[in-house]
């Protein structure tokens, strides 16, 4: 309940906030375009006093020569939205693949990551079964079998995640190649435009450059800076130079700690790229944030289960009356030395079921008290303050929430792109009356939607409060 109210509060805050503050993005884009425009068209700046004097001349005007500059600003806004939408689409696809990995198996006997939850239960339940007859070899075999299934599914999941990560690296490398090709083409176009049309619209050359910029925006998050003589510089969203008028700077790749990183001018910019937008940003966010987090959680699960189960077994006495020693510990799982990599390396090292130490030290081999203790690990908070089952369940739930959040973000971003494209189409080839009508539609839609949002929010708040009162009374 609190979460919903908080979420609503954030949204309502956004809606009620000051118009100027909320238009920062919009104004930044428009302002970013304005200086370049002034430089290209100094006469336009000279004419400013006519407008500042409050005089408007609407009658009899035509559209002669008025489209190019406006389109550049609009295209830049479109490009920015496209970068965000491409990034979240790419990330969403990758996240859906990760989530599919953890979807419970529909009943076939194949080992899958989705079965890890039931594997954990089955493994600890096998100790509960052993409690009834600690000397029964079949029950001991069942423990090792359940351990093997659990370790196999965790290990398979980690390997699949690593494979997905590698595939994302390859996709990202392919994107970098395309980026280099486009920045090279844009630099060449800059030279041509600067030499042929330093003070005017460059026509098809400019169209071509805009087309390349649109494609580039699908691939990577960029900022555009208009320079003298109709030139253009492009940086990544974090400010690294990709194109400086006629010169372009190539993205290169290299392996750092087993991962493909991206460099510009010798500097590793991978972490800046992964939050920068475009497909490249999406691939790198999925690889370095989403999959990394899932792998880390899985490693933690494997590490904690392995070390705790091994430690407990090692304190007991096996079927032959032996206890674990430093040289020959009674370990069921491969004992991990660190958390990182534990999931991929998880396996069962015990081959003799007789080595399961069901009895506690000091007792006979038929004693079951250590088996009881091992079964009890299922209900102990051995992983970051949670039981193994709860930890796994929360981890899957967090993954699902992340997918939903990215889905929501993507829906909103695509909607914004749709709007801009729709407005762009309306504005690009019509007269002033049509343009005014298009603007009116945009404004009316916004106002009506704001009203719908406000009313729905009020209704929801009332409904939640009423529900709370019901629960209390």
């Amino acid at each position, binding site marked *: 309940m609190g979460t919903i109210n908080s979420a609503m509060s954030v949204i309502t805050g956004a809606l009620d906030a000051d118009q100027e503050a909320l238009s920062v993005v919009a104004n930044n884009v428009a302002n970013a375009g304005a200086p370049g425009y002034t430089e290209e068209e100094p006469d336009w700046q000279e004419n400013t006093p006519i407008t500042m004097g409050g005089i408007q*001349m609407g009658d009899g005007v035509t559209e002669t020569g008025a489209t190019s500059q406006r389109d550049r600003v609009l295209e830049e806004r479109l490009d920015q939205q496209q970068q965000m939408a491409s990034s979240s689409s790419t990330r969403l696809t990758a996240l859906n693949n990760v989530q599919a990995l953890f979807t419970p198996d529909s009943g076939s006997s194949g080992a899958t990551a989705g079965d890890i939850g039931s594997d954990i239960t089955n493994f600890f339940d096998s100790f509960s079964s052993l409690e009834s007859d600690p000397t029964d070899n079949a029950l001991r075999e069942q423990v090792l079998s359940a351990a093997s299934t659990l370790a196999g599914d965790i290990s398979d999941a980690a390997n699949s995640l690593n494979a997905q990560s590698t595939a994302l690296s390859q996709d990202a490398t392919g994107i970098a190649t395309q980026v280099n090709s486009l920045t090279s083409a844009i630099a060449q176009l800059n030279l041509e435009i600067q030499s042929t049309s330093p003070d005017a619209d460059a026509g098809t050359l400019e169209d071509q450059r805009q087309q390349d910029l649109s494609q580039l925006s699908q691939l990577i998050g960029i900022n555009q800076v208009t320079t003298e003589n109709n030139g253009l510089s492009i940086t990544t969203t974090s400010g690294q130079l990709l194109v400086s008028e006629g010169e372009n700077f190539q993205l290169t790749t290299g392996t750092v700690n087993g991962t493909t990183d991206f460099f510009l001018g010798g500097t590793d910019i991978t972490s800046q790229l992964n939050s920068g937008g475009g497909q490249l940003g999406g691939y790198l966010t999925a690889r370095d944030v989403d999959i990394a987090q899932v792998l880390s959680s899985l490693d933690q699960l494997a590490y904690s289960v392995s070390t705790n189960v091994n430690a407990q077994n090692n304190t007991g006495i096996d079927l032959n009356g032996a206890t674990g020693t430093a040289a020959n510990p009674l370990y069921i799982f491969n004992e991990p030395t660190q958390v990182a990599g534990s999931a991929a390396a998880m396996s069962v090292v015990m081959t003799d079921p007789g080595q399961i130490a069901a009895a506690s030290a000091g007792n006979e081999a038929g004693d079951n008290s250590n088996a009881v203790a091992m079964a009890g690990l299922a209900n102990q908070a051995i992983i970051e303050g949670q039981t193994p089952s709860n930890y796994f369940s929360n981890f899957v739930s967090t993954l699902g929430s992340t997918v939903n959040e990215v889905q929501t973000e993507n829906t909103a971003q695509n*909607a*914004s792109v749709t709007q801009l494209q729709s407005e762009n189409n309306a504005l690009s080839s019509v007269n002033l009356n049509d343009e005014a009508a298009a603007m009116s539609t945009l404004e009316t839609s916004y106002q009506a*939607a704001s009203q719908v949002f406000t009313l729905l929010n009020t209704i929801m708040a009332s409904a939640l409060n009423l529900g709370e009162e019901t629960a209390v009374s």
Partner: protein
Amino acid sequence: MQGRVAGYRNLKLKSLAAEASQALAQLDAERLEELALSCEALHRKLALTNADRETRRAMAEQARDAAADMAILGRVLEATRANLGVMNRLREMRMERLEYTVRAPNAAPESSAMNGDGDGNH
């Protein structure tokens, strides 16, 4: 009363929010105005209703279900506000540019050009 209560249990706040997002994305102003009117009517009715325990629970459940769709609507609204800002700025730039385009050939008598005589629309 029974029918009214059943109606409230089927508010479909989630559907309303989702449809509003869709309509806003497509700039369907007409549909959005219809939705706004529907929401207003719904709001008035709910304000007058003395709902029973079960209906209250159902309404709260509806509200919880609609949270994600409301979040989307909120984000599309924010994006629309930004887009609207850009469009307004573009229109201003365009108008200024058009004014200059028309005035430039007549730039000789400076005072009259600056005052824009004969064009009206002051």
